[in-house]
Structure formats: structure tokens, C-alpha cells
């Protein structure tokens, strides 16, 4: 009956950038010369030198002096953004380290400009007890290149029946709670989780679909599924559950975060809930913002994920939601799968695509270049992913911990041409020409990623 086993009641995990863990690197002292600094939240937009001293942003200014021992990075022509934050990543550890582990997953994150990520608990075993959570956090302290938080399951084994020891898990550093991959089927269990949230704290992040509507569906129900003879997942499978859970959250005064919104009807349900004052946040993925079920005509299994790619009207609604802020952040739902598992007929292949390394560039060429959204909006939404979980958005303002990425917006590259940092390659954008290449990422004050060619230039 050790101290450890007693739930640490009354220490809600919401406060918690402290709940993120990483292998601490040497605190960086770097002078970034001549980058275009863009931090919409802090109102920073202009070309200047930026000095990072001992892992902290010290000052911006013209022709800053490099302190002794500082690395000087010639960054004219590059943009400096606050580091991105991804609230939805699958690191497959423990259980499927062949697909991803903490090292490879966080390397992929750093290569994508991310300085913090949150990992989902649908591993093997499921993260549903404090010991599993603690061991993961310990591994992150040894292996993670960028600060990584771990959500714990809402129900034991994600079976949807019995709540996990949420209070103890919160005390052990859970970044929030989710049964992601599966919905919380029972409205009664969902209600109990919302009630128990008052004790345990932590936002409930929800994968929303009604299994009785999704059935054995493998793609969006619509023209394309009719043509291909594939079982469809109707939009209302997501939207009805979102409406249910918003009603429950309102009734119990709980806080929920709706994951990977895919359908127009869902965006509408969220708008109504927000207008009614429900504490609900939501995320959108790059693939739902950029692709439609039309891509599935190829039966390429890298277009199979859950929720599925939907119609053009759905895509536009998700985009509008991102603009209006009803969907407040971009999340990749980075879901690595082994190659042999994706080399099956579409119906048999597992759902999920990788996205950490392509998110910014895919959205840049797909939405910013054609003028659909502004660069400042994209940066704001890419950096906001931690906020629903109490992880503050990174900032370029002086005095902030150094969390930033340097990006060459002019650089054009083909996704996957030089391989992947991730252990898996099941990316929906593989083979596409993208613009916007991350040259360097500094996370929690240390250099987490340097593009190879850029590293050479910087040294010179």
C-alpha cells in the first residue's frame, strides 16, 4: 500500500506544460540573423535578428551582436515561427515499436517544425494505468527530441465500459483523457466521465462516431463509395455523436475537445454548441482540410483513415471552421502503419496516415499559396494545439522559452523523396510537390532538428 498507489486527488492535470517530457539537450545559444519573424499571437511580424541565449529568447533587433560561443545562423529569406504543437499523434509505443517509437516519432515531429506533441493512449497495452503512463514519461525523458505529453484512456482498455482511475492518472501526469481510435459508445459512460472530470481534471478528447452508423464502413458514404462498392461511413455518424456529447458536456458543465473533425454537419453542431456556451474545442487535420473522397478512387490505402476523407462540401466546411476558430487548431492524427499492413486491398488495410513531416508544407502549398488562408492564420492554428490541454502556445516574444522553427517558404520538395524520419511511410501526401521546408527546429530551448544541407550552410 505504497504512497504511489493512492490516487493523488485534487491535482488536476490541466495546468500542465509540466506534464510534457523530453530528453534535455544543451541549452542553445543561437543568433538567428535576418529571418522574417512571424508570431501572430504576440503581434510580431517583421525582419530582424533574434537572439536565443541559454535556451531562452533574449531579444530581437537589428545587427545584434553574437555572444561568445553562440552559433550564428544566416536566415535571411527564411521565416521564423513559434514552434508548432500537435495535440494528436500516435507514437505506437508500447507495442508497435516497428511502426514508430518515441525517438523516431519525435524526430519526425521536429522535422515538421513541431516543438511539442501529445500522444494518444491506444497502444498495447493501453495507457490506462498510472504505471504504464509513468514508464512512458520516463522513456520520453530519455528519448524524446521534443516535449511529449501523453493522454490516458477514458475507459479501461478503451472498452467503453468502466472509467480508468482518472484521478490517479491525472496526478501521474496525464495530459488529458481520450479513447481515441474508438468512440465512447455509451452515453451513460460519457456522462460519468464528464462528472468525474470535476475530480480528475483534464480535458476529454473525443473520437466521435456512432458505431451503429459507421458499421463496417471503410470510406465516406457518398458518390465515390457508391461507385466503388465500398461500405460507407456517413457524415452523420460523426455529427450525431458530437451533438450528443455537446449536450452532455453542457449538462455536466464539462470540457471536451473534438478530435479530427471531418464533416460539415459536425462543424454546424460545434457552431451551435459554441454559441450556446458549451466548453468545447476542436481540431482539424491537414488531410481533411486538403483532400476529399475523390482521392479514394485510386484505392490507394494511404487515403484510408478514420474519420474518412469526405466530400468537397465537407472539406470546405472544415476549412471555414478553421477560419472562424470553431476548429481552433491543426492536428495531424499522425498514425504510422507498417508497409505490409498497408499493402492490402483497401477494405483490409488499417486506417491511418502519417502527417508530422508534411503538415505545414502541405497546408502551405494547398491553402496559403493560393490565398485561401493567410500565413498568419496557418501559423496561429498550427501553434494552438496544446491550449485545450493546458499547454501554452509557444511564442517568439523576448523572455519566452525558445520554441521555434525556421522555414524556407520558397523551398519546393517532394514528400518522401529523401525518406522519412518516421519509421513508417504511409503519408497521404507522399509523392506530392510541397512548398515550405523546415530548416531548423528549436524545442524547449535546445536544437531538436537541423536539415542536413542547412546544417552545412550554417556551419560555414
Amino acid at each position: 500500500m505504497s504512497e504511489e498507489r493512492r490516487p493523488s486527488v485534487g491535482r488536476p492535470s490541466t495546468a500542465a506544460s509540466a506534464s510534457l517530457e523530453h530528453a534535455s539537450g544543451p541549452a542553445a545559444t543561437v543568433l538567428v540573423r535576418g529571418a522574417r519573424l512571424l508570431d501572430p499571437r504576440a503581434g510580431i511580424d517583421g525582419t530582424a535578428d533574434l537572439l536565443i541565449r541559454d535556451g531562452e529568447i533574449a531579444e530581437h533587433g537589428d545587427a545584434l551582436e553574437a555572444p561568445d560561443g553562440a552559433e550564428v545562423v544566416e536566415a535571411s529569406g527564411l521565416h521564423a515561427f513559434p514552434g508548432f504543437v500537435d495535440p494528436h499523434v500516435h507514437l505506437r509505443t508500447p507495442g508497435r515499436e516497428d511502426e514508430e517509437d518515441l525517438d523516431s516519432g519525435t524526430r519526425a515531429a521536429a522535422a515538421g517544425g513541431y516543438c511539442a506533441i501529445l500522444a494518444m493512449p491506444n497502444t498495447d497495452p493501453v495507457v490506462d494505468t498510472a504505471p504504464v503512463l509513468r514508464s512512458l514519461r520516463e522513456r520520453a525523458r530519455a528519448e524524446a527530441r521534443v516535449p511529449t505529453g501523453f493522454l490516458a484512456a477514458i475507459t479501461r482498455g478503451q472498452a467503453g465500459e468502466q472509467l480508468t482511475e482518472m484521478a490517479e492518472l491525472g496526478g501521474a501526469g496525464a495530459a488529458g483523457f481520450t479513447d481515441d481510435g474508438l468512440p465512447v459508445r455509451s452515453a451513460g459512460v460519457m456522462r460519468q466521465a464528464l462528472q468525474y472530470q470535476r475530480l480528475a481534471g483534464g480535458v476529454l478528447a473525443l473520437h466521435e462516431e456512432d458505431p451503429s452508423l459507421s458499421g463496417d464502413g471503410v470510406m465516406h458514404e457518398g458518390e465515390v463509395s457508391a461507385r466503388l462498392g465500398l461500405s460507407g461511413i456517413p457524415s452523420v455518424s460523426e455529427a450525431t455523436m458530437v451533438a450528443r456529447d455537446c449536450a452532455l458536456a453542457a449538462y455536466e458543465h464539462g470540457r471536451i475537445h473534438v478530435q479530427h473533425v471531418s464533416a460539415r454537419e459536425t462543424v454546424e453542431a460545434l457552431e451551435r454548441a459554441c454559441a450556446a456556451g458549451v466548453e468545447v474545442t476542436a481540431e482539424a487535420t491537414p488531410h481533411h482540410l486538403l483532400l476529399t473522397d475523390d482521392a479514394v478512387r485510386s484505392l490507394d490505402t494511404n487515403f484510408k483513415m478514420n474519420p474518412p476523407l469526405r466530400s468537397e462540401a465537407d472539406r470546405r466546411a472544415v476549412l471555414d471552421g478553421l477560419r472562424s476558430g470553431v476548429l481552433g487548431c491543426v492536428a495531424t492524427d499522425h498514425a504510422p502503419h507498417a508497409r505490409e499492413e498497408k499493402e492490402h486491398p483497401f477494405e483490409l488495410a488499417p486506417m491511418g496516415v502519417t502527417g508530422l513531416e508534411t503538415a505545414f508544407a502541405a497546408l502551405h502549398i494547398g491553402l496559403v499559396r493560393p490565398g485561401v488562408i493567410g500565413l498568419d492564420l496557418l501559423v496561429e492554428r498550427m501553434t494552438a494545439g496544446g491550449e485545450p490541454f493546458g499547454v501554452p502556445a509557444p511564442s517568439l516574444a523576448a523572455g519566452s522559452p525558445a520554441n521555434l522553427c525556421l522555414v524556407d517558404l520558397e523551398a519546393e520538395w517532394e514528400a518522401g523523396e529523401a525518406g522519412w524520419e518516421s519509421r513508417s511511410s504511409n503519408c497521404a501526401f507522399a509523392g506530392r510537390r510541397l512548398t515550405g521546408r523546415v530548416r531548423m527546429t528549436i524545442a524547449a530551448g535546445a536544437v531538436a532538428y537541423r536539415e542536413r544541407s542547412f546544417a552545412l550552410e550554417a556551419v560555414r
Partner: protein
Amino acid sequence: MNRHLLSIDELSRDDIERILRRAESFAEVSGREIKKVPTLRGRTVINLFYEASTRTSSSFELAAKRLSADLVSVKAQGSSVDKGESLKDTVQTLSAYDPAGIVIRSPHAGAAALVSRWTSASVVNAGDGKHEHPTQALLDVFTLRRRIGALEGTKLWIVGDVLHSRVARSGILAFTRMGCKVTVCGPPTLIPRGIETLGCEVCTTLDDLGDADVVYALRMQRERMTGSFVPSLREYAACYQIDGRRLGPNQLLMHPGPVNRGVELSAEVIDSPQALITRQVESGVVVRMAVLYELLAGHAAPAPLPEGETTEPQPA
């Protein structure tokens, strides 16, 4: 024409006409005492069937044999497939025998297209999940054309479980390409949302069945009856069975087989002279001979078929 036959989508009306003419010429051969032609002698055709099938697999076998090809039939049961070998490994193993053609039947959409990426053989889709069954559609068009001539403006009703039917999907595409006006009809739970984008009308009752020139009934699979797609077999038959009362004297009747007597069709219409069901089975062999010929013989001996030419294949 493409190197593979994966979907009716890939065929132009000219491609279809060409296959039909070729099938006509084989139909003539089939009338002779010795039904074999030497066209594919020395070439190997592999029948790879991951689903139980009697008529499709046997008619492909017969078609390959009548073209003098060497035939290997691989059924999912009793093969390495049961030992957990993936489709890719199976196809790569079979490809080591250097087949000219692989005929594949799979319970999964897109399987034939996948196979075509993993082999240098020509691939024929003999049914992939609920997606397509292109040779069935071609033999249906062939059968109907032989009976009534040009199909332009012919009104064809496809009745039954459209949701789970690859025959319906390929049929809609092929018949509309040949100029037919296609209507699909069935219980609302068995009509896929968005099917009208394939170019057909949709309705849920047989009230206007009298408009049809041809009624194409789909097989109502018994395993679907146990779900909640239809409340009961009895109610399905009451609403959608094609019987002597509903089928007019000038309407033709088709069915891909095997028929559930007393479910989608009544005994009287099956045995009526309006039914083309056994003609469809006969056509299966010659149309599949034509498909194999077009895909496999074309590369070695590129002999374009002149307009109206029907006698090219010689009996052995």
C-alpha cells in the same frame, strides 16, 4: 484497349463492340463439333479465386481451354492463402510461372487493380468485392444484343440488392455506355447513396416496371436477409419479386445466377421464354474467350479486326 480488364470504366463503346464481335466469332466456333482454337497454345492462364464461384470460374476455365491455353486453377481453400500468405506474395509466386494472364476473383474491392501492379501478366477482374464484375456485364450486353439487336434507347430495370452488387455496378456502366436507359430499383436500405451519379435513375417501387423493356433481377443473398436490410424474406418477395403478374408479356428477363427461386423470381418467369438466364450462361464462355483473346493474343499477333470481321479464329 488496356492490357488488363479491371473495370468497365476503362472500356470505350468501341472496345465493347470489339469484344462483342470477337465473342460472336467464338460463338460460331462453339457451334462446331470441335470447339477448340489454337490461339493461346503454349500460354499459361492462372485462375486465382478467393471466393466460392461455380459459373464464373468454370466458364473462365472452359474459355481458356478452348483457346488452348495451359490453365492453373488456384482456389483460396487448400492453398498457401490459408497459411496466411498475403495477396502480394501469392501473386508474385504465381507470376514466377510467367503466366500470360491472371484471372482473379476476390471479396475485396480493388484487388484486381492491386494484382495488376504486382505482375507482368494481363489481369482480368472476375469480381472484386462489391466493386465490379466486368465480364458479367459484357456477357449480359452480349446476350441482350443477340436477342434484340442495337441497345440504343432500351429501357433496362435492375431490381434488387444494388448495395451489395458488383453485377449492378458493372451493369449500369456497360448498359449505359451502350445507350440503354438504366433504372435501379430496390428497398431503400439496399440502394447505395449516390448511385445515381453512375448515370441511372433510382426508384423504390415496382409501380412503373411496365416502362421497362428488360428486367434484370439481382440475386438476393440470403446472408443479407438476416441483417436489418429487409425485415423479412416474405416482405421482400411481396414488394420486389418478379413474377408472372409483374412481368409483362413483351418484357425480357435477365438474372446473373444462381437464382433463389421464390425470392427474387417466381418459378413461372424463370421457365418462361422471356427469360434469357440460360443464354447468359452460354454467353459467359464465348465472351470470356473474347476477353482473354483480346488481352492475351493481341500482343503477340497484332491483327486488327476489320469492321464486321467475324471469322478470324480457326478451329483447331
